[in-house]
């Protein structure tokens, strides 16, 4: 890379520190990151000074409503920022910029967090940097794993995309045609009244480990895109039969004749959805002739998905899979600080008038000025 990342460095200072605020869904995250001057490399890595998160958890059977989520963020943001600053041992005035998630996400939670960002910016007289949530995930994943130019599978509650970098954009090669994979899992969890604490997807993962029988479900890959709403409708009706008080028709395993359990459904759903995700990722790999995969987003912390991806790349020459643990793949503030700081180092700051958040903000809209490979 030949990009000059230090054109805007403050004279006499050998590093940058940025604060990042994330609140596009039900997680409120505050992170503080430090970059030393010069290119990031194996010997000059970004330093996580603080990375704190608090999650709004709704009762079983309920999704998180925008107004309650926004209220959660509003009432916790000050405490979290104070804590992050004290963990990092920095003062507001030590910072170079305030980074915030500008989208995509849920409107009300985004708006409640950007107000905190604007306030801090004026309080400490610091520039604001609006960050694309998806780009935050990608850049943090690349930095943590030091993967150079991977095909990125971004899987979360609101997003399902296969992304590859080309010519200063993160380009979307494939994506869901209807609902996101995390949303599909969350909604299924609600049908089975699986608790949302700590996360519905995590609880499904644990139940799936006990599943034995595979129940056939539709498999809907379309090129590098996929569709999941049909699968959800299918398995929801199986679940409804299972809990129907009338007796009715209960699903049994074709071979053993054993009754299908909720654990079997969790197992079958995961196997089907993840097979589709791995397949579209492999299609993108073949298409761009790469062998590196980086998995980011909340669903990326699922060990079965990571394992399946590993089995896929094992059959490709020099293939490797990179993933991060829940600190970095579940929504967090540090990724916003990191991606925002990369933009800031290229002079990308967001004037106060342009800090309005947007629920729709495509990954490929961002000019990735800090890369030119």
């Amino acid at each position, binding site marked *: 890379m030949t990009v000059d990342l230090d054109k805007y460095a403050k004279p006499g200072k050998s590093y940058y520190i940025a604060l990042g605020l994330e609140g596009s869904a039900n997680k409120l995250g505050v992170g503080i990151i430090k970059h030393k001057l010069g290119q990031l490399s194996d010997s000059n890595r970004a330093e996580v000074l603080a990375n704190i998160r608090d999650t709004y958890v709704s009762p079983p059977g309920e999704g998180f409503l925008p107004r309650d989520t926004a209220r959660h963020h509003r009432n916790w943001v000050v405490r979290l920022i104070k804590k992050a600053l004290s963990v990092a041992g920095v003062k507001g005035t030590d910072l170079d910029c305030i980074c915030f998630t500008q989208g995509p996400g849920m409107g009300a939670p985004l708006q409640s967090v950007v107000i905190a960002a604007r306030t801090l910016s004026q309080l400490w007289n610091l520039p604001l940097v609006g960050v694309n949530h998806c780009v935050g995930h990608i850049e943090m994943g690349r930095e943590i794993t030091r993967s150079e130019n991977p095909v990125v599978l971004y899987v979360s509650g609101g997003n399902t995309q296969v992304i590859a970098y080309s010519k200063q954009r993160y380009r979307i090669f494939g994506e869901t045609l209807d609902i996101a994979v995390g949303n599909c899992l969350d909604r299924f969890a609600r049908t089975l009244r699986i608790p949302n604490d700590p996360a519905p997807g995590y609880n499904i993962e644990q139940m799936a480990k006990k599943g034995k029988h595979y129940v056939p479900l539709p498999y809907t890959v379309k090129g590098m895109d996929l569709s999941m709403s049909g699968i959800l409708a299918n398995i929801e009706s199986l679940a409804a039969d299972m809990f129907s008080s009338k007796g009715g028709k209960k699903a049994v395993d074709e071979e053993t004749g054993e009754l299908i359990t909720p654990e079997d459904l969790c197992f079958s759903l995961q196997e089907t959805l993840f097979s589709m995700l791995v397949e579209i990722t492999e299609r993108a790999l073949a298409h761009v002739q790469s062998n590196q995969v980086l998995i980011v987003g909340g669903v990326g912390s699922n060990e079965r998905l990571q394992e399946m991806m590993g089995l896929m790349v094992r*059959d490709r020459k020099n293939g490797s899979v990179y993933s991060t643990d829940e600190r970095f793949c579940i929504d967090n503030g540090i990724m916003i600080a990191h991606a925002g700081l990369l933009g800031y180092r290229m002079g990308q700051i967001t004037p106060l008038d342009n800090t309005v958040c947007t629920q729709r903000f495509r990954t490929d809209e961002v000019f990735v000025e800090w890369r030119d490979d």
Partner: protein
Amino acid sequence: MTDRLVDEAKLLLRNVSFQIVSQGAEALVFKTNIHPYFNDDQDESSYIIKYRPRKPYRHPKIDKSITKSRTIGEVKFMFKLAKAGIRAPRVVSTDYFNGIIWMEHIGYSLPDGKESTLKNWLWYLEKVRGESLSEEVQRICVEVGYLIGDLHLNDMIHGDLTSSNIMLDKKGPALIDFGLSSYSALPEDKAVDLYVLERAMNSTHADYASEYNSWLLKGYEKAHSDGHYSKQANKSFVEIIKRLEDVRLRGRKRSMIG
């Protein structure tokens, strides 16, 4: 490609010598001079063997059902393409259970040694010769668009149109890879097929995609307007393009909440 997969293939294709052409996402592609059932010493032609290996990441039940349905689907589609006179490799023989298709070999080797897919050819021109917008490129793109128009006029949907799935041959462009194909007369399905290609062009050939895409559509329109199909063809072209605009918008507007 790992040795394990090649060993698996050798086991299934005993006594057949082959060269490896490529490892796609779901299939390995080999080239051979051996015909699966004729024994003709005079036969100089070469054949392609497409092999869908077992995917260890998938549950065995999912794996079996996908391998079988895609292999069968692909062969039937190729048979119908041949009947409709749409350029694609001809099927020689198949083994559904093991996911193997033998077919006619089409295409040639580019000066950089790669096979002549549209993608490799365009990349070669972009990188090596710097003449991406020549009249020849325009002519080929229009021909490819025409070919896809022909496909859709037969109510056949490719399902995975990318520049890697279009093979250039001395006789003109041809389609390959029909594992995700389907049949439909709906403008919606045809528009999605075009959209998939358009997006693949945008992401694979970013610098020249707008020219390539407009030439492809020009050829696509030509297939609908030059009168070798019914008079309805023109009308259906208008409908498909209208749908294509909707599909594009849908992609950009899709809410990404959460």
